[in-house]
């Protein structure tokens, strides 16, 4: 198998997604674990904690979405 430019671009797209979702995954995991801890300590505040957690998870997830966008652009627009 030959190494071509298009192949390298597709590889870059896959790597972008793999590396780019690394951080947000850790971030969302930490947010959820802390939120569960907080609910365990203070069950009355469950509603407020859940809303804030979903907001924070959405913000962290956006970073993965940036990576996904770059990957899509690489794979569809640059790589053709």
């Amino acid at each position: 198998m030959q190494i071509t430019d298009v192949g390298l671009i597709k590889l870059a797209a896959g790597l972008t997604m793999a590396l780019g979702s690394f951080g947000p995954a850790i971030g969302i995991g930490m947010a959820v674990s802390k939120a569960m801890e907080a609910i365990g300590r203070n069950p009355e505040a469950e509603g407020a904690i859940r809303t804030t957690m979903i907001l924070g998870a959405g913000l962290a997830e956006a970073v993965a979405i940036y990576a996904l966008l770059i990957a899509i652009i690489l794979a569809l627009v640059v790589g053709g």
Partner: protein
Amino acid sequence: MEIEISLAAEPLFQIGPVAFTNAMLTSVLVGLALVIGSLVLYRRWSLVPGRFQGVVEMGIGFIYNLCVGTAGEKVGRRIVPLVGTFFVFILMANWGGLLPGYGVLTIRNFEGHQVPLFRPANSDLNTTVAMALISIATVQVLSISARGVLGYIKEFFEPISFMSVILFPVHLIGEISHIISLSVRLFGNIFAGETLTIVMYVLIPLLVPTMFLGLEMLFGFIQAMIFTVLSIGYIALATAKHD
């Protein structure tokens, strides 16, 4: 089956030099639906709320409390109409994009290409950049009205020291990055959701895409929330009094 994913919105017809795209068509339709819906509801507004009016009142109360709670009584009351409109428009555009017919109904456009008639409004970067620009422009205007022109300019050099010259471009880039992050976050989420649903539909056409549509409903709501909360947050930061 071939997957067709287009990053840019497809033009339907031309008005002078401006190409009217399918994303513009859906944003106009969503806007019209919201205006007509509000007018009908306004005409039938009663002191004792029915079920639908109750839901609307709850939503308005939620946004109002969010604004006043974050930005304070004076600024909060002023921005309720703007950020409320952001919320409702983004939510309806996102949820409307899940209706059957989006991306499937095609039409032959002026260039002779076969293009989808509808495309979720927020899966075009132009729509989201427009909203982010309105949001950040409001932040600047409210900041000037809260601090005066001199106070507004001084804000770019905070904290005042011999480092201020270096801090100015940092603050400037910070303001611009707000526009980029607000718009790309919304666009990316909706566009990625569309793409994901299409890919899932091609891989497993039975039942699985339905679950992803449910996920899209959740994401559509969360993204509308995030855009609204961040707009309120930026405004609250820009108008807060220092001491």
